[in-house]
């Protein structure tokens, strides 16, 4: 079995990951919804759907729609809230995932919201650490935590003071340079970054002259964002020393390996799990096969080994055309 391959093991966030492949937040519920479909415990892990202090009902339908090369969603961060997560969701994760690691995705609309979730979970069993969703509007001024570097630093600093567990920040793509945001997270005490969250977008129903999504706009995911995710991972991994989790549009092992060469030590599978619930399993099997076929005995020796750009090309340039 691929997951048991010693070449795939890595030590990240102070823990042994049997595989570099995790399920992305929002695409695997709280684990239980996926348990009947694939052997979850053979994966590197999963990131739960977002948890906020209070329960959230979420947006009006439609919440999802198809887009060229992927899909768009505006679920609205529907979740049962911290208390119900602890009583109804976390015990299942604790009892059923022994080898796969769990990161709890945390959302908030003020620093205190995030901190309350982190502190409320800190002493509990059943998960390794936190992934912080900073693509939420701050109630103070409506700007996303992830786009205002001062707010991002303030948030990460506060959360760092609230937990010793691994603290990973899921970066938002709507910044001039994801690398700068990654460095801000590092300096504020984060243990890792996920690159990258969905891209804002919208779809119009031309017959009814309305947005297709109840929320008007949403986040675009799927193969369409694969190159942007790889680029974000590259920028993040070149800009800080933190472990990077690569995410965006991965369907195959070769796509996951693009992220790994660009600097990701772990990758997350999202939309592809809808296309085939076993996508993450086949990705990790494909990575193990790639290692074996190329005589690589450690995955970690591949991480970030993208060869330098040809002479005369600035590898940090983001200019197109």
């Amino acid at each position, binding site marked *: 079995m691929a997951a048991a391959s010693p070449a795939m093991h890595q030590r990240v966030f102070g823990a042994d990951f049997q595989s570099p492949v995790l399920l992305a937040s929002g*695409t695997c519920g709280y684990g239980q919804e996926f348990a009947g479909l694939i052997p979850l415990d053979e994966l590197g892990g999963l990131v739960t759907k977002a948890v906020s202090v209070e329960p959230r009902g979420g947006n009006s339908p439609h919440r*999802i729609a198809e887009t060229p090369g992927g899909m768009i969603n505006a679920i609205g961060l529907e979740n049962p809230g911290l208390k119900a997560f602890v009583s109804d969701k976390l015990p299942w994760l604790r009892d059923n995932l022994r080898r796969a690691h769990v990161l709890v995705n945390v959302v908030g609309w003020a620093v205190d919201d995030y901190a309350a979730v982190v502190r409320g979970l800190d002493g509990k069993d059943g998960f390794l650490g936190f992934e912080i969703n900073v693509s939420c509007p701050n109630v103070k001024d409506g700007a996303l935590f992830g786009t205002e570097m001062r707010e991002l630093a303030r948030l990460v600093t506060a959360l760092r003071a609230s937990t010793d567990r691994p603290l990973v920040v899921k970066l938002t793509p709507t910044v001039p340079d994801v690398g700068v945001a990654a460095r801000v997270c590092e300096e504020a005490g984060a243990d890792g970054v996920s690159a990258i969250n969905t891209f804002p977008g919208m779809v119009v129903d031309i017959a009814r002259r309305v947005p297709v999504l109840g929320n008007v706009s949403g986040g675009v995911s799927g193969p369409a964002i694969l190159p942007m995710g790889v680029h974000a991972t590259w920028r993040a991994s070149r800009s800080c020393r933190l472990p990077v989790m690569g995410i965006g549009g991965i*369907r195959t092992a070769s796509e996951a390996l693009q992220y790994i060469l660009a600097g990701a030590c772990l990758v997350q599978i999202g939309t592809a799990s809808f296309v085939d619930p076993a996508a993450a399993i086949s990705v990790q099997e494909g990575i193990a096969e790639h290692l074996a076929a190329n005589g690589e005995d450690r995955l970690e020796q591949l991480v970030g080994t993208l060869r330098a750009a040809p002479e005369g090309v600035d590898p940090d340039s983001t200019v197109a055309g």
Partner: protein
Amino acid sequence: MEFACPDIAASAHPGQFVMLGLGLETPASWLVPRPFSISWTSPGGVVGILLRTYGEGTLALSRLEVGREALLVGPLGRSFETESRTIECVAGGVGLAPFIFLASREASRGRRLQLLYGERDAEAVFDPALIRRLTGHEPKLFTEDGGAGTRGRVTAGLDPESSALVLACGPTPMLQAVAAFARRHGRDLQLSVEEHMGCGTGACQGCVVRGADGRWLKACVEGSVFDARELDLGG
């Protein structure tokens, strides 16, 4: 269309659905699988679906060659709960799909149901001879333009004198009209609802419908069949 999947065929109940796509072979241009009501099963392990082409994805599925592999996840969702009652089905358009399965099941148990089937025009009508062959029932056909069957809306076919359990599947305005009829005549009603779906298993929370208490209900796992009293259909 028919797919050989014995596990799904053996455990499916009328009202349940499958998520259908080509797995990781699906072209990126229509990536996400589609939910389809199960329309028939056979003892040999076949699962049949009723396919109407809307866009690229359904067109590609309709052109699948015999022998091609597809990915079906299912059976998913809650089924109709009919408990040997007399049944009156109201189908709008491709909402006919779950009733083909139900009607054939009832026929195989020697029971009859009323199958009201409406379409916008004659061109859209699924072949009545095929429906007869699949279900052992004669559908009572309505078209809005009168091009086939009785002219008018399918809801006109509902029998106000009956006390049968009403089941409905179709566009929202039709469901609203059936719900109004059921309220007026004190009839029990179960609805199979449609919404855009991502995973079909409750993980993505993408396919919600409004519950009577204001909460969002997941069409995939809390439905797709609901008792009408559980829903706020608006309108």
